[in-house]
């Protein structure tokens, strides 16, 4: 007879354990959501050099506010919404300091260089377009296109109606299409 499989605790259990004073629960939550959060922040135009810092800042703010988390949206969705706020605050500083994001060349070097250059240009252009979207359009677009969330979940995370989430998404796509075209 094999050893019984260990049940993976749900986010809600980890949150309750953290609020009960168990630090390890916070560590587990960070491990579980770092990749998705960092990817979400990176797509919002956060430079590589600041990605870890902003990820950390988002988790810190989330844990500090955890007492007010009511579970209306999933913990990850709630975390992404906080991440959006953190980016918004940091954007002001970037504007002041005129920081230019330097994105590394990640394309496969074995492919066609012209194709790579074109893909990179398109990605850069789209990143600019996303940065120029209104905040809710940007966040709804990324939650939907990148994180694959349902509109209801997005709406709960951002504190808007489901209909509004749909409208924001469609406006975002329309504006990005115009930006790229």
């Amino acid at each position: 007879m094999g050893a019984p499989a260990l049940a993976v605790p749900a986010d809600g259990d980890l949150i309750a354990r953290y609020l009960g004073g168990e630090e390890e629960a916070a560590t587990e939550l960070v491990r579980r959501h770092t990749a998705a959060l960092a990817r979400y922040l990176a797509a919002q135009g956060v430079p590589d050099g600041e990605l870890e810092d902003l990820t950390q800042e988002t988790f810190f703010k989330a844990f500090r506010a955890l007492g007010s988390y009511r579970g209306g949206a999933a913990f990850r969705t709630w975390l992404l919404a906080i991440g959006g706020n953190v980016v918004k605050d940091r954007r002001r500083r970037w504007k002041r300091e005129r920081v230019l994001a330097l994105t590394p060349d990640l394309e496969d070097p074995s492919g066609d260089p012209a194709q790579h250059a074109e893909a990179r240009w398109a990605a850069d252009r789209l990143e600019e377009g996303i940065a120029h979207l209104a905040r809710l359009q940007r966040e709804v677009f990324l939650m939907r296109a990148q994180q694959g969330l349902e509109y209801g979940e997005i709406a709960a995370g951002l504190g808007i109606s489901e209909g509004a989430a749909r409208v924001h998404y469609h406006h975002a796509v329309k504006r990005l299409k115009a930006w790229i075209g």
Partner: protein
Amino acid sequence: MDRMTDDELPPEIEAAWKALDARAAAGAARVDAEAVAREVVARLRREEQPRAWWLVVPPAVLRVAAAVALVAAAGVVVTVSRERPARQSASLPLAIPSADSLDASELEQALQAAGQVRPVEDTTAAATSEGSMAGLSERQLETLLASMKGAEG
């Protein structure tokens, strides 16, 4: 996670989005989740610890408070040193039982000075308890003897 169904990305955005998201994923992969967790937990721990009040109060306020405390302490020292001689003279009668060198009249004077004039008998009784009767007058000795007899009877 469900991907989009009713609202797929238009083809002109799709390719650019895939490239951008791949770049975002690669950047995210370089974020050290363990380091983030360590730092977040350490920051939360630091914030939970009650900060010592002298770390919270601005240094300028601390300096002013220290100066005020010094002035107050100096004031207390001066006040005490001024009051001490007066207190010593006022408390002289309290030291009488041990001052066995005083005679009865001196004891009486001392008691009067303190506003506690007592009859001669009391004074002699106090002197007796200290075992010093030198200098008592004959009348005082007689009174003392009578009071002792009375106490025995």
